[in-house]
């Protein structure tokens, strides 16, 4: 079976010369949920922007379900397969109503009429927001907007869902609701986060990116319990949180 995502030797320097990635290797199998951890400035966002070809690799390659990213021919298909949920839902939700926003991706891919309508409804139902379809996004709470942002991407039936800081700015109840939704989805997930308990709760596997390379890749509970590794890469657990005492759900 081909992996959902395969990154090989990916290196990238910004046009101003600042090099963000120095040979990243990462493979994610279909259906896996993986957390991408790392301190600020580690290159996490840069890596994410490579996954759907917004940034073009300086060296190395990215493939999504066997399809090479960066090949101009496949750009539309790659962007459909890789669903990125950005951190600020106000950036992600740019249409006048929730329904139109969720419809944007599928409509850009050519879906119309009843088919489009069904696709939108299904995506909104998956995040429990179907009754808000005709609302303008700015009338929703932050947590609701984040869920709609996830729906906008789900509507495109992505191969892999990439979430940038999904739990940021959420109150504990919304954070838990989002976790329930993410767990219920049958899709490969790559979650960029600083929220380590959230990573432990949702992702059996974690990858630590630091200084533009992958420095650790393994079971989340083991990584978070490795004090030396954590200290070396500016990763800190919240006060009183002990990953060893948590029973991880399968």
């Amino acid at each position, binding site marked *: 079976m081909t992996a959902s995502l395969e990154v090989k030797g990916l290196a990238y320097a910004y046009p101003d010369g600042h090099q963000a990635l120095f040979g990243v290797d990462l493979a994610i199998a279909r259906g896996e949920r993986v957390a991408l951890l790392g301190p600020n400035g580690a290159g996490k966002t840069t890596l994410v*922007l490579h996954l*759907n070809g*917004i940034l073009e690799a300086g060296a190395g390659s990215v493939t999504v379900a066997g399809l090479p990213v960066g090949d101009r021919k496949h750009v*539309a298909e790659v*962007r*459909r397969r*890789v*669903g*990125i949920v*950005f951190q*600020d839902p*106000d*950036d*992600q939700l*740019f*249409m*006048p*109503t929730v329904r*139109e926003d969720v*419809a*944007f*991706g599928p*409509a*850009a*891919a050519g879906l*119309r009429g009843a088919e*489009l309508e069904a696709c939108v409804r299904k995506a909104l139902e998956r995040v429990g927001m179907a009754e808000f379809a005709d609302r*303008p*996004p*700015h*009338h929703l709470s932050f947590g609701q907007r984040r869920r709609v942002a996830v729906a*906008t*991407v789900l509507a*495109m039936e992505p191969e892999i869902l990439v979430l940038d800081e999904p739990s940021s700015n959420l109150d504990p109840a919304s954070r838990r609701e989002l976790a329930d939704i993410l767990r219920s989805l049958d899709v490969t997930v790559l979650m960029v986060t600083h929220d380590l308990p959230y990573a432990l709760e949702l992702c059996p596997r974690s990858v630590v990116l630091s200084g533009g390379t992958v420095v650790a890749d393994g079971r989340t509970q083991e990584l978070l319990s490795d004090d030396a590794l954590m200290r070396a890469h500016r990763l800190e657990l919240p006060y009183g949180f002990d990953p060893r005492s948590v029973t991880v759900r399968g």
Partner: protein
Amino acid sequence: MGAGHAHRLYRHGHSPVHALPPQCKLAAVFCFVLVVVSTPRSAVWAFGLYAVLLATVAAVARVPAGFLLRRLLIEVPFVAFAVLMPFVAEGPRTEVLGLSLSVHGLWGAWNILAKGTLGVAASVLLASTTELRELLLGLQRLRLPALLVQIASFMIRYGDVITDEMRRMRVARASRGFEARGPRHWGVLAKSAGALFIRSYERGERVHLAMVSRGYAGSMPVIDDVTASRAQWSYAAVLPAAALLVCLMGWFL
């Protein structure tokens, strides 16, 4: 500004006018205004008839007169200079209430006032019976360049976001003891405006990134297509057609 900012002009209802497709209403209002401005100003009665036509539309749309008149106040700053015309224009003069006024000026002022008011009233009726989003769909349908429609639609979406950002900046300034009390403080306000511009610009880039990530390639996909039947078009045409009749009578009678 509250969350309802974008919809403040709209008055919810279920009248036949509300139900018309937006492109029909837009075209009807546009033609009506064209007809009104091409009416000779001396046909005073014609403008009375136009007002009656609009009042009929308002009645069918169940828009109360008070609501309409209050909205008309928006026109005041624009016609203020029309009031000055009778005082400053040249030509033969006439006495009104002991004031010496120019005849040409009076006609000029009447012309601007009458045509302006009718145009604004028609637009107010359009805005109060059509949702902003629908107006955009209508404009798109009438083949307004897609770029303009996109710009307008983003303005609606982000107006509140940016207003909110502005409010937060004001609160942050006030919390640090700043209060704008005169020209000396304009510099601070100008810098805030600059910061707001840069933030909005950066947001624009992030929004574009999000759009590209979902398959945007330069044009907005068609999500809702509003179609109009022949009956709806002819129903909407009643207003400009009746106005045209009045206008022709104004020229030839």
